């Protein structure tokens, strides 16, 4: 009996190998998963570790992540310490030398582009700060084009047979972004601005010149006090804008602030749905543009 189990296990293993795609790619969030699909099309199906309902900063390492990373040829992360609370533990637990930082199998999106909010004080009295720069680069479609180009080259190096596909995918994605950026820019010109919960959408606002009117939490990672909210309301009273918060942020405060200010309020994830591809990613940006453009004086 144990022998039979062993045989069936062995069969499973062999089958797994036979059916394997040319590369096993793991993406930490669904924006990066979408980017991999945009580059690889049918050639690869990435495993996405964290869906848009979860805060990439608060996740804990899970055995299922280690299982996914065990056989990965490439892990695609946001980086700049956004996943520092769990990804290093998950990679270590996966016992896979190919995806250690510094190897071809480790890719950080934030390392491929210029970051905002760089060089702030490394002082935890200021909350959960990122002296390396704001890590939420995946909400800027133009930076995603740069990331896509770098990622295509990485995929090409790991899977030379697919190089043409990946480069073609990057070109198509760049083109798609270019087409829609013009429209987005036109719609967002003169947008009155956004009140965010956390500085997690600054790349998108910065890209389209939309003012960030403030953040509900005055200190990153620390809930706002009544005094903070009073100050925000006083400061923003009479202006136009929109309040946008993420699914894992507390809805009560944004809703109340929006009511007090007479603004629209919108709950928007930072990343597209789990199964999104390149188009899905751009549709996700479209939701943000729509929400921001909806706020008119």
């Amino acid at each position: 009996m144990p022998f039979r189990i062993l045989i069936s296990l062995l069969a499973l293993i062999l089958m797994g190998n036979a059916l394997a795609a040319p590369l096993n790619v793991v993406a930490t969030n669904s924006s990066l998963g979408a980017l991999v699909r945009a580059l690889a099309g049918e050639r690869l199906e990435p495993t996405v570790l964290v869906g848009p309902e979860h805060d990439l900063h608060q996740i804990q390492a899970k055995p299922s992540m280690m299982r996914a990373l065990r056989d990965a040829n490439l892990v695609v992360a946001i980086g700049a310490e956004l996943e520092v609370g769990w990804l290093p533990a998950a990679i270590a637990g996966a016992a896979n030398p190919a995806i250690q930082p510094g190897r071809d199998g480790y890719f950080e999106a934030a390392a491929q582009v210029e970051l905002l909010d760089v060089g702030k004080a490394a002082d935890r009295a200021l909350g959960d700060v990122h002296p390396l720069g704001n890590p939420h680069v995946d909400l800027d479609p133009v930076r995603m084009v740069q990331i896509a180009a770098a990622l295509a080259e990485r995929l090409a190096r790991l899977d030379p047979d697919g190089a043409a596909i990946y480069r073609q995918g990057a070109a198509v994605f760049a083109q798609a972004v270019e087409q829609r950026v013009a429209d987005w820019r036109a719609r967002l010109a003169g947008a009155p601005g956004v009140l965010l919960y956390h500085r997690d959408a600054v790349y998108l606002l910065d890209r389209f010149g939309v003012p960030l009117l403030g953040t509900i939490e005055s200190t990153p990672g620390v809930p706002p006090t009544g005094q903070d909210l009073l100050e925000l309301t006083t400061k923003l009273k009479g202006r136009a804008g929109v309040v946008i918060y993420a699914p894992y942020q507390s809805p009560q405060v944004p809703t109340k602030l929006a009511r007090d200010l007479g603004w629209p309020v919108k709950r928007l994830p930072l990343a597209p749905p789990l199964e999104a591809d390149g188009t899905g990613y751009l549709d996700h940006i479209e939701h943000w543009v729509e929400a921001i453009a909806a706020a008119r004086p």
Partner: protein
Amino acid sequence: MRPSILTAGLATALIAPAAAVQASSEAEIAQLRSMLEQMRSQYERRIQDLEDRLARAERQSRPPSASAASAATDPAISQPMRAPSVSTSSIPASTTSHPSDFRGALSSGTAFNPQISVILNGNYYNDGRRGSGAALVGQALQPSGGLAHDQDHVHEADHGHSHGGLNNGFNFSEAELSFSATVDPYFDAAAYLAVMDEGDVHLEEAWLQTRALPHGLRVKAGKFLSDFGYANKQHPHAWDFVDQNLPYLNLLGDHGLQDTGVQLTWLPRLPVYTLLGVEALQGDQERFGATLSNEDQERLGLDATKNGPRLWTLFAKVAPDLGQDQALQVGVSYAHNTQHQEVQTHTHADEDEIHENALAGEADLWGLDLVYKYDGSGPHGQGDFKFQTEYLRSVKDLDIVSSPHPEIIGSRRTFTTDGFYAQALYGIAPRWTAGVRYDVLGLTNEVGGGEHADYGSSDRWSLNLTWKLSEFSQLRAQYARNDILVAANERERFDAFYLQFLMSLGSHGAHAF
């Protein structure tokens, strides 16, 4: 180019004073002028050259769609760790003029220092027994361990400090210093030191672990907390309750299976996460496989302590993938210590003399563990749920080696004690977690072999509330209702109350599952 400029500069510096003195020498001045002119034109050419290259690089790095947009980016923002820019064209950038993409992890842990953190763990404690309750919960009656017939005899481990040693009032449990780093492409290493309130330093862990072995294999060596069970590997700051659960505390002691040796783990390529591991450890344990001092061994006719490794463990952990929101891990563990010695004392009603029976043999330990986590994805842990339970069973198979009663020498004694704990935590509000734990020791609590005896069990209910102000600080209040069996027919029932702070200074690495 550079040497020639240097020479010219040097020459200028050397000749300049001389030229000032011999101002009459028109020819020399003219020569100097021409040299300076030459240097200036060289520099200008080089600067122009650099400017051209910079402009070229900028043109290439800017994506076509971003040309207008990049104007919006604040150019004044500095970038200490700027990554190489990347061309968006589908043609790969020529390898010589562009560096390849960045493969590392951006990190502020700079300059090759290890990641350092200090965790401060202190509390206010009060029980209804003037502070003796904290020691009692670690001395619940079990027939093995020298406690059987003598409640006054306290099995004092010769391991410097105790995590459970609390007084009524304020206690500083420990400052835990941890250092970790990647040593080189082949090894990671870490060291954990506990500094107790009197200044004693205890080496909790110091190990190396491989990072480059193939086929899902990893080797760990040094002093470390065994992967036996689930709670064993956790440092006190990672516990969800202020104190250790009863089975671990009583069957393994304050430090659990913390020993020096080697561990091999294998994560086979299976559809479900399965981790298999084996450890060979020295076996220098507080309770599970303890050996006596040389003098005691000689006095009582026991064998000397055997060569290590004496403690072997096997473990398997299986975790099916339950999707994004849930995680489950089930583990089974076994440990065997090839040498265990203990002295059991007793007195007879009509004598003052204390009789000592010396026992020696082997010890086995079984463990089952289950952990379930649900990520409620609410703000700051609201709605998160965690359930954790473990069962431990210790069996010590010993022979009486020496005794004042010659008739029992050579007879066998089997000491079996088991226990389990189950605990659940729920994020009742953003940053607030409520927990409940039930732990019990001695569901089976018996002596077998030449003599039979059966004892009762000790148990405890704990309730707590944790306030996580940030990722780096937490405050906790805990109440425990203890019912501890201290002698065959004697129980101590008491309440204990804890207020704990945990402060995490510096870089605090990720916790394992």
